[in-house]
């Protein structure tokens, strides 16, 4: 905690959480994971409260504090995603047989995501993730090349990716910055929902 103030931590963690949400088709601060009501701000608040209360302890020998807290956020995010898909399967089975009328039963079900309107990108499906990301960055050759190196050639180390693309490692990091910014600015889900509309908006900008 020598370098990071809580203000700085809050901003960095929220940016990370927003990026995580956007990667899985959930863009914007107020956006929640369907069926759970969990937002990026909630995940950051929860992990910071745990850290402040001493429930999450940082050992400098095991990496930076930001990495530790972001790992917690990522785990909570994946838990919430699996809960969301679990809830989706549970809804039809949760019939209330206590004698309430149809109207009250229908009302209680509104708390659950409707499988027909629920965003299909909210799930951990490798093929769909690969397809979405490649499609989303297809109009920018430099960014598309990075995505292809990672998703199609299974290259993960910066040096390997840079070498494969014939660029410097610094250039690769610059492209990652551009990927992050574009991801957060527009969110992958918008391309899935209405590709024409987003492409025209982006062209105008």
């Amino acid at each position, binding site marked *: 905690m020598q370098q990071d103030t809580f203000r700085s931590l*809050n901003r960095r963690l929220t940016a990370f959480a927003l990026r995580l949400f956007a*990667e899985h088709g959930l863009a914007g601060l107020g956006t929640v994971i369907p069926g759970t009501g969990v937002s990026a*701000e909630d995940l950051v608040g929860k992990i910071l409260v745990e*850290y402040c209360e001493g429930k999450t302890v940082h050992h400098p020998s095991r990496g930076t504090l930001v*990495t530790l807290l972001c790992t917690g956020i990522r785990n909570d995010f994946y838990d919430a995603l699996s809960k969301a898909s679990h809830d989706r399967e549970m809804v039809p089975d949760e019939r209330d047989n206590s004698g309430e009328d149809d109207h009250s039963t229908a009302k209680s079900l509104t708390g659950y995501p409707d499988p027909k309107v629920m965003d299909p990108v909210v799930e951990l499906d490798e093929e769909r993730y690969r397809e979405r990301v490649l499609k989303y960055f297809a109009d920018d050759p430099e960014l598309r090349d990075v995505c292809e190196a*990672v998703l199609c050639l299974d290259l993960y180390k910066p040096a390997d990716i840079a070498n494969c693309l014939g660029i410097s490692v610094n250039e690769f990091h610059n492209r990652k910055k551009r990927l992050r910014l574009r991801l957060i*600015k527009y969110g992958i889900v918008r391309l899935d929902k209405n590709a024409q509309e987003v492409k025209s908006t982006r062209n105008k900008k």
Partner: protein
Amino acid sequence: MHKKLNPRETRNKFTRFSEALFGEPCEIDEAEAIELLAAAGVDSSELDASLYSRLASVAQGYWVNQKSVPPLLKQALSELRPASAPARNDKELATQAKSFVESLVETVKMIPALSRYQAPTFSTSYRNKGQITEADKCLIDKAKSELEEKLRKMGAKENES
């Protein structure tokens, strides 16, 4: 053919994709975080205020149960405390007053017209021109001194009012 991954392996795979494509968490420094938040339409100060109220409600639980507030929670509340919040003690009141006066002085300094009247200066480059006769130079000098006198009187009048 791809092997079917268990949930833990799937998560690990996604983490590898995510970090290779969009970078490791520690790669986002505060400056970039602010830029990303702005791109997402998030106001950083509102974000701080929201976290402060969340932490304050957690601290409230400790106070109600008469337990000591964990040191990191105290530190976080102290760092995130909004400037507009009422002072809790004399020291905080003095700090708030000092920063208010400092910001006021800075604002005043930015308005030079309020700080002091400055008389205008005249360019004398006409003296170096070859085509002007001595008589013309005398006329211009006379006009210049008349104008200076007029401006001096106007400045004095303004200062009196």
